[in-house]
């Protein structure tokens, strides 16, 4: 899965009590609806199926499954009180299955690159 709207990762962590990875990013220059459409298209291309998407007055929630197991939950929340020209438009929180670190490259141990700041789990 690769994301095709401008974004920056804010935090990435493995949840303490659930076997999930929580990835928070912010999207830039596009609106929440466009982010939703883009994510749906992206996950569909990767072989996921959309299931029971929902939403509230402040956010959009998407759920995806693959082979009836890997469940992904995505919450898209636009920032309150945006000025018209603001680049940063909102937050995407993704609850994903955990994955092991894929490489030993030094950058994977740099917290400012991985954004894995959680104190209880410094570098994995």
């Amino acid at each position, binding site marked *: 899965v690769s994301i095709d709207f401008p974004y*920056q990762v804010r935090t990435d962590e493995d949840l303490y009590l659930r076997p999930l990875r929580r990835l928070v990013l*912010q999207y*830039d220059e596009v609106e929440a609806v466009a982010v939703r459409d883009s994510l749906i298209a992206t996950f569909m291309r990767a072989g996921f199926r959309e299931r029971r998407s929902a939403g509230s007055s402040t956010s959009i929630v998407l759920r995806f499954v693959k082979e009836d197991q890997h469940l992904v939950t995505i919450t898209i929340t636009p920032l309150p009180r945006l000025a018209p*020209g*603001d*680049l940063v438009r909102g937050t995407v929180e993704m609850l994903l299955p955990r994955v092991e670190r894929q490489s030993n490259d030094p950058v994977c141990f740099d*917290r400012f690159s991985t*954004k894995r700041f959680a104190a209880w789990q410094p570098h994995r």
Partner: protein
Amino acid sequence: LRSSLLPVARPKVFTVLIVAHVVLKVSLFPYMSSAPLHGDERYYFDSARALSNLVRDIASLGTVDVGELQRNVVGNGWFMPGNGIVLTPLFVVDPGAGITTIRLYLGVLTTLLLLFTVMRVREVLGDLYAAMLLVFPGLIPMWLLFSFGGWSDLVAGLLIVLLLAELVKWTRALRLNIPPTCRDAVRMALIAGAVVYSRSSASLLVAVMGAMVMSFCVVALRRRALFHAILAGSLVAAIFGALLAPWSLFASHALDSTVVTTTSVPTSLAVAFGNPDELCYGPCDPTSTQWFTPVRYAREVARATGTGEVGVLQQMSSYSRHGTTPKSYAQAVLDGFSRYALHPAAFSRDVRSPDHSPEAVHTFVVATTNLLWLILAGCGAILLLTVVRGAVDAQIVSLLTKLGITSLLTQPFVHVAGSRYWTSVAPLCGIGAALLVHLTAARRPHPRLARPPWTKAEHRSYSGDAPTDESPLRRCLTAIQAVQVILAVVIAVSLVLFAKE
């Protein structure tokens, strides 16, 4: 003739004061001589090292390492390169200069600058002002310690006094209907440029003082002389612009944004007045300072969106300041003022040599600095509340000093203030103190300290047709000062009222 000579005019007084300055400075040197670089000092030294490499590259006709200059001279765009340039010769001669050598070099250079400023002030304003500068700030222990440091606030403070002396000279010539010459214009532009190169926060001061002198021209000059004065003013602006341009262009190029002097104001506003938990549209990354993480974040957004980081910083700043109310703003400004003015020796803990900094010296530095700064700041405050009505020359000194002090004091309104910023305003307060002494002494039947003020009468005018009656000008200067005083009082009172509301 003897009676017209003032006691302070005797060279002996100057010798004693200069010796006192040097002796105190030399005895304080060990306290800081091997103190490791502290905070922002590091940037100025990195910048100086990069600039010395540039000199070497150019001298050997090698290729210039633009990347190094972008990283170390521009960096985040927080600091003007003035102090880096001042330090460059040292690193050209000795690239591996140790900390003691660096501090010694700075100490010698700042004393030379102080002495040069004193000479210049003595020439233009007289012995009293010059002697006062040797005491305030020349004998303030913490000021002396800062003079071994790599921050540029102190250098800017002395350059501002040079600028003031130059401006007073200009106004005198203008009163004789003599327009400034080309040489005057070049000198003025060089000093103004040096001020801004050392501290971008003094840009406002330079602009305000420039505007004041130009309006003075319009009021005081006749046609032909006015035309010349406008030419000279344009020349100053052109040279000043040409001096600033290389920096502005290079910094803008390096940061891919429009940068005139520095980029720190948006972040500073946000840190001082905004909600830290919303600075990065949410909390910034942990594990680094409130200064670095916003910049890092802005770069990420800039990279993701293909824009310049400075624009992103501005957006972040206004987003985080959404909840700022007049009350929270006023409280933060007052906090800023207390950091600016109430702990002048706070840095003395941070600039101690690991070995030669006995507690007794620290106590001495703190106590003496507090006392002397209290007197000096008191004089500055009294001057801000004083309308000088006597001689036009004293009125002009009063007006320019007040303008200078108030434009430097705008810093806590837009910036997180720190306990080293007072070194920029201290020399101006010294001028203010001398003016107050002059005014008090001039009231006595036989003034001893007050040299008869500079008057037009003794000088021949340019075209012989300059108006001899200066009372309209005097009234005008009185009115402007009254406005200054009222504004200062209104701003101070409303700050306190809003903060308490």
